[in-house]
């Protein structure tokens, strides 16, 4: 009688292969990207970027698994996993990083606990104030 609800409250977004999304894309739940995205991506849940995906955007998610190509900065609040086919042209930041052999990263990579990130930001703002 009643429909089943998944953990994300039915908020899962799928961008399939053969579909192009342009603009500021935000989702309150999980996101799976197999197609083309240009603009920005924010997922409050988990993000999966498959091998067929092509993204030209800054990407933010809670957890992310990437097998495709991203041209832009990638930020995961918790865990980030780069599979062997992943190509990242941009900076990466996360709390926990796993990289499989074959993945390529062109950019800075910051893996830090929140306290360390906060310390770094405080130091940067202090330096900026002194300057």
């Amino acid at each position: 009688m009643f429909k089943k609800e998944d953990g994300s409250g039915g908020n899962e977004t799928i961008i399939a292969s053969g579909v192009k999304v342009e603009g500021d894309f935000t989702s309150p739940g999980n996101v799976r990207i197999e197609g083309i995205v240009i603009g920005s991506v924010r997922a409050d849940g988990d993000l999966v970027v498959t091998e067929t995906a092509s993204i030209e955007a800054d990407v933010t998610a809670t957890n992310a698994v990437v097998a495709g190509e991203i041209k832009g900065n990638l930020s995961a609040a918790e865990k980030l996993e780069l599979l062997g086919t992943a190509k990242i042209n941009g900076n990466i930041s996360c709390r926990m990083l796993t990289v499989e052999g074959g993945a390529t990263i062109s950019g800075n990579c910051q893996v830090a606990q929140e306290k360390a990130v906060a310390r770094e930001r405080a130091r940067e703002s202090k330096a900026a104030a002194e300057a």
Partner: protein
Amino acid sequence: MYHYVYESFLTDPKFAKQLSVIENRLTDLGIYGSVHRLALFKTMKGTIQDAVRRGAKTVVVVGDDGSVARAIDAIAEFPGVTLGIIPFGEKNTIAKLLGIDDGMSACDVLSARLVEELDLGKVNNHYFLTSLHIPGAVTAECNGQYTVSPVNGGEICVSNFSMDANGPGDPRDGRFETMVKTATRGFFRSMFSPAYASAGTSIFPTTHVIVRAPGKAQMTAIADGQSYQDAEFRVEIMPRRLNIIVGKGRQI
């Protein structure tokens, strides 16, 4: 008092016996009321507007999916009015989704009067309950934030209430599931057998969608089986807009 709107095809003598049985059952249950019969110049919209003007609080449509779709389009303008359904004719998918199996069980459902508030979709000036389909190489602007387009053509479907029990679309969640269906084909498979083509479906939760075709070309949209033509379709969710009498076996 209940107002019953009879679809025009019910004048066919083959329905006379079945109608008589249902009318007797409604009388036994004490819920029989005034009857309005649709005809060539007596439309669903005009009939429902007249009934509401005369104080109708419950309108019961007697007919098939097409009748229900036209009744929903008319009754959505009157938020205080409740809609009931007595299914008749060939196609009654909407009634079945709402837990109303046939004419006789519909009488008991009306008598029990279990009312559910459901979301409706509004496309330009028309309302729909289930889904809207727009085929072709079109672009959908979702929530005013981003645009979605199938690269090699496809179909856009804005679903409020899925006809498939396991499909996306709950008419009580205040949003649509906008789906973009594309055909993806492997080179050799599509060369030798188009039947091997497999469809990819993208799903986006949305509250308002604007669908446009390239070059402002005319498009055809099909909502609840009704066909509309325009160069642009503005689709928005109307939360809890429809009061409708449902059965216990409803698929929501």
